[in-house]
């Protein structure tokens, strides 16, 4: 019992202090408050279950963000899809056999209103990004993780992280400016003209740059 109490207080002290950060990341990943809350709840319960496997000297926030990201990519998306199928199936069932029948399987007016107010410009802009780009941008620009930490979380080389960040930022900034123009916050001629064509060049790679430089750079120094 004593061990269990200690585990709980350690978890609260080291993990739960990051709740705001985790919720922020989840909110931008899922793009709505309710899903974000579920994602954080599921992820933290999982983290609690595996708390013994957390290396005490490593970055707890990065470890938690890895769990949030994995849960989002691996399970959350799948669960969401199957939930939609279930919803459709149960709506059909209700229509045929209901004792307590619901008039409409669609969203209630209150839910529709909520869904509307939550989807602000930023969420709409994020929606246009591929998941990998969005995740990289969130982990870097919102959570301040290093390339190495992001590479570990996303299980890809650092060069890929950089490419995703580079492209993700261009696309996202472009979308944000377009929405700002559309809503009349910014005049069209103020929007960056070159943002219209996001650059799709080869993978950015600092390591490759360094390797090439060490081969050719000696004579310049």
């Amino acid at each position: 019992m004593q061990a269990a109490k200690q585990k709980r207080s350690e978890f609260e002290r080291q993990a739960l202090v990051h709740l705001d950060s985790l919720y922020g990341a989840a909110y931008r990943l899922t793009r709505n408050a309710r899903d974000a809350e579920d994602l954080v709840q599921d992820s933290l319960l999982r983290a609690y279950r595996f708390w013994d496997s957390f290396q005490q000297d490593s970055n707890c926030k990065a470890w938690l963000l890895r769990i949030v990201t994995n849960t989002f990519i691996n399970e959350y998306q799948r669960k969401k899809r199957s939930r939609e199928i279930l919803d459709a199936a149960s709506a059909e069932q209700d229509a045929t056999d209901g004792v307590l029948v619901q008039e409409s399987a669609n969203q209630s007016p209150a839910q529709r209103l909520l869904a509307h107010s939550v989807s602000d410009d930023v969420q709409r802009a994020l929606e246009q990004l591929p998941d990998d780009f969005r995740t990289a941008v969130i982990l870097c620009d919102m959570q301040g993780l290093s390339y190495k930490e992001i590479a570990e979380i996303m299980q890809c080389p650092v060069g890929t992280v950089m490419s995703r960040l580079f492209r993700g930022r261009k696309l996202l900034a472009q979308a944000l400016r377009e929405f700002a123009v559309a809503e009349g916050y910014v005049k069209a001629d103020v929007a960056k003209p070159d943002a219209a064509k996001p650059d799709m060049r080869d993978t950015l790679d600092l390591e490759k740059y360094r390797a090439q430089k060490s081969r050719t750079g000696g004579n310049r120094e």
Partner: protein
Amino acid sequence: MSLCESIDTLATAYLDDELAPEERHELDTHLTECTSCRAEIDGARADQSLIQSSLVAPRATDTMRMRLARSLDNADRETARAERKRMSAWLLPGSAIAAAAAAILVFVGVGVQSHHEHASIAKVAVKQIRGAQPFEVATPNGGAQVLAATFSPRVDDPSSRELERRRVSVNGHDGALFGYEITHNGRRAVLKLLVVTDLHDGEMIDGDETQANGRWVHVGQDQGQPFVTYVDAKRNGFMFTSDSLSADELIDLVGKTSLVGPQ
């Protein structure tokens, strides 16, 4: 190779503070003499600061913190329970070990241990319905969603009729309470049905698990009044209770009712 060729890579690493000091110094020097690279960096910096200021998200709410604490409490109890069962399994004869293991699976999430820090939603609701505890003040529009879902109370007894429907709040959860007059086993009875949404782990579960026509439900009681709860996959919770029906009769009713919560 010139710095200009790799400016995308360098600008990204520069702004994210991932360059080595000497690389940074070299690029700084280069930027003083190269206008196009300077423009690249300025553009990337503008994008990044626009993104960073846009990505600020709402903070976690107190409700969320409370729910999380409750889930962790449940996880702690499950662990303790599994531990106890595991210990007792060693003391049982071989044939009973499998049964004990099955019992652990079945009882995950069930409040076997009496736990008084926060009573389940079911228990609180029954106290409210019996008048032993005042109804909580519902939030201004709370429960409207549940009522708006428009339940048609066609209980499969032609003489049943709806007595009431109202918005309620239980343990901070908004919901709706429906009252029906029904005939069951030849007796008139008043059946109360509570519907709440957005339940989290174990908030409603109270009592012993059993099956009602293929559906897993929990049967509990408060001061002798039985109640039966059911939580669907969408985290809508349903509770049946009556002051004139037995637990078995309630289970029978739950098994016969199609329970459809708000989406």
